[in-house]
């Protein structure tokens, strides 16, 4: 019998910058409230203790190697709910940029002639999102994730509710903030097709949306084409920017 009825939560990371898990610590004083409603049983970034008995697994990072895929499958088997945390886990994110090249090529660029053949540490395949390897129950998008959104997701799951993740474009949030449109300022922005939830943080800070939360489920591509046309931009311009985070959408990830 478990002594507590609080859900047991674990955090795991794969190829990533760890910036999404860092947002848990960046909740500052609210972390203290959070540990009131869940039991954190594994969180290497902040604690030494570890348990394999958990209900909810948060997984950050992309999957790069057979050894990582095996570890992820074990996490999936143990968790009742698996949540992908951040762009690398949800859509491959910036890690997928290297899928433009062959695995052999990128190895050569970074490691040169070093003898790494047959070494499992270096045995990489094309970058995969977590959902390319196992079933994912919920996605917390963004690079990095919004810590407020994460707190809401954890609270919903602790209450046994389904977390609400926006499925409308960043433009909606940007308009609410009364920002001058980035296109009007001569910039480029993926706000019209990118999933909201970030509070349009990049346009609000004078920089175009880079699509780090991935596409909305049914992106209005006609409207995007109209916007591009209006500002004298081409589809190639858009696609060139798009693959910074969303390379995955351009084609199937190689197995």
């Amino acid at each position, binding site marked *: 019998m478990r002594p507590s009825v609080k859900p047991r939560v674990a955090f795991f990371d794969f190829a990533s910058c760890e910036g999404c898990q860092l947002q848990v610590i960046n909740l500052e004083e609210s972390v203290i409230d959070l540990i009131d409603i869940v039991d954190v049983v594994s969180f*290497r970034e902040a604690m030494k203790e570890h348990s394999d008995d958990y209900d909810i697994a948060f997984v950050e990072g992309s999957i790069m190697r057979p050894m990582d895929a095996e*570890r992820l499958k074990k996490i999936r088997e143990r968790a009742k709910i698996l949540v992908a945390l951040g762009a690398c886990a949800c859509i491959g994110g910036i890690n997928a940029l290297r899928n433009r090249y062959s695995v052999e090529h990128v*190895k050569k660029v970074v490691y040169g002639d070093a003898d790494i053949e047959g070494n499992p*540490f270096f045995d990489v395949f094309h970058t995969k999102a977590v959902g390319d390897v196992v079933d994912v129950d919920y996605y917390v998008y963004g690079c990095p994730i919004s810590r407020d959104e994460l707190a809401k997701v954890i609270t919903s799951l602790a209450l046994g509710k389904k977390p609400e993740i926006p499925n409308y474009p960043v433009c909606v949030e940007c308009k609410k903030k009364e920002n001058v449109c980035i296109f009007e300022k001569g910039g480029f922005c993926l706000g019209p097709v990118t999933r909201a939830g970030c509070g349009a943080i990049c346009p609000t800070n004078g920089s175009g949306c880079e699509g780090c939360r991935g596409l909305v489920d049914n992106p209005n591509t006609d409207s995007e084409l109209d916007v591009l046309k209006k500002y004298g931009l081409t589809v190639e311009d858009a696609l060139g920017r798009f693959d910074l985070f969303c390379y995955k959408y351009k084609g199937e990830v190689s197995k």
Partner: protein
Amino acid sequence: MSKKIEIKIEHVTRVEGHGNIVLDAEDGAVKQVQWQVSEAPRFFEAMMVGRDYTELTHIASRICGICSISHGLVSLKATENAMGVKISDQTLWLRKLAHHAEHLQSHVLHVGYLVAPDLFGVGSVFPLVGTHKDIVVKIIKLHRLANEMSDLFCGRTTHPITLTVGGFTKIPTEKELVALRHRLDDAIETTKEVAGVVLENAGKLPDFTRETEYIALSSGDEYAMYDGVISSTDAGRLNNDDYLDITNEFVVPYSTAKHARHKRDSYMVGALARFNLNSEKLSPLAKDVADMFGLKPLNYNPYMNSVAQLVEVAHCLEDSISKVDALLDTGLKDEVPDFKVNPGRGVGVIEAPRGLLIHDYTIDENGKCIKANCVIPTNQNHRNIQKDMEVLAPQLVGQDKDKKEIELTLEMLVRAYDPCISCSTHYLKVDFE
């Protein structure tokens, strides 16, 4: 009866990756000790090639979630050096403030959340909320200030938005700077209190020394963090453009992170290296904090890196105050970056919280990156960690320390280097036979 100690720590930690420790000893003699980095390689250099110069800083910041500002800034330096872009004094000061915000955030995180539990003999900061709430709240307060300072200058805590080639896409208002000034003042007192508590518990830091080479930026003008010339305790001032001959990166089979060496078989970068090279240029409070702990150059104890970080927290606060005052004196102007895309190669250097960080880009006439190389602080430290372990492990085994103590001392060694947030906490899972 032969006494065998076998330590194998697997796919445990993240630095800029996962790290393992392997120790194999029999009858008091260490047969093998290895600091392995098994992190999945991410190939950033390959990701940057072919991308537009405007995107490089945003790609670069994603190398590290804790020091994304340093990566963003050094990326801009490399890009601007490659294209011959000049920045204004205002941009320089604002960037230095953004950089201080990151050092504060990273150092407070490391000392307060990751090292402190070892000093109090607990597994994480969470139990300290119950037993030492007062000090935990002070640490959170400093951490929050550092993060909100990053928000102010960079638009976001992690992965800066406003940093752009030639300047900023958005700058703070004078009113926001005044508010920050008050909070920085307030944080000075908090820092003294935190330093006092760390000092009370500093006896837990192992007394281990191994002479090595220290490399960091140095500057005639200030305690070098944002700008400077690569310098060494063995070889004096060097040339930034010769960084390849300084870092000499090479691949070892037990590490997906490269190793580096210069005059000796290994060297160390980071707060202790900066302190050892440039301590006379620290701010007054920073010097006081160093004196409290008896930290003097040259200090060869890697565990004192955490203390050097605390010294730098004091320095960053005081130096930020003087930079905010200077900006308020001059007044803030809206500046629009003005430059042309020129082809060329540029090397950028900076002190990230964990040490010397170098980006080197070649940009073509269309503004596309055609070659990129990044030398990361943690990679430069891996060999020094390895060499420390080769001296430390036989000492521990020879002194017949129990398994828990060997485990903790090795864990604390890795943590002292602050390789990256996640590795620092639950680093090692040690099994003894």
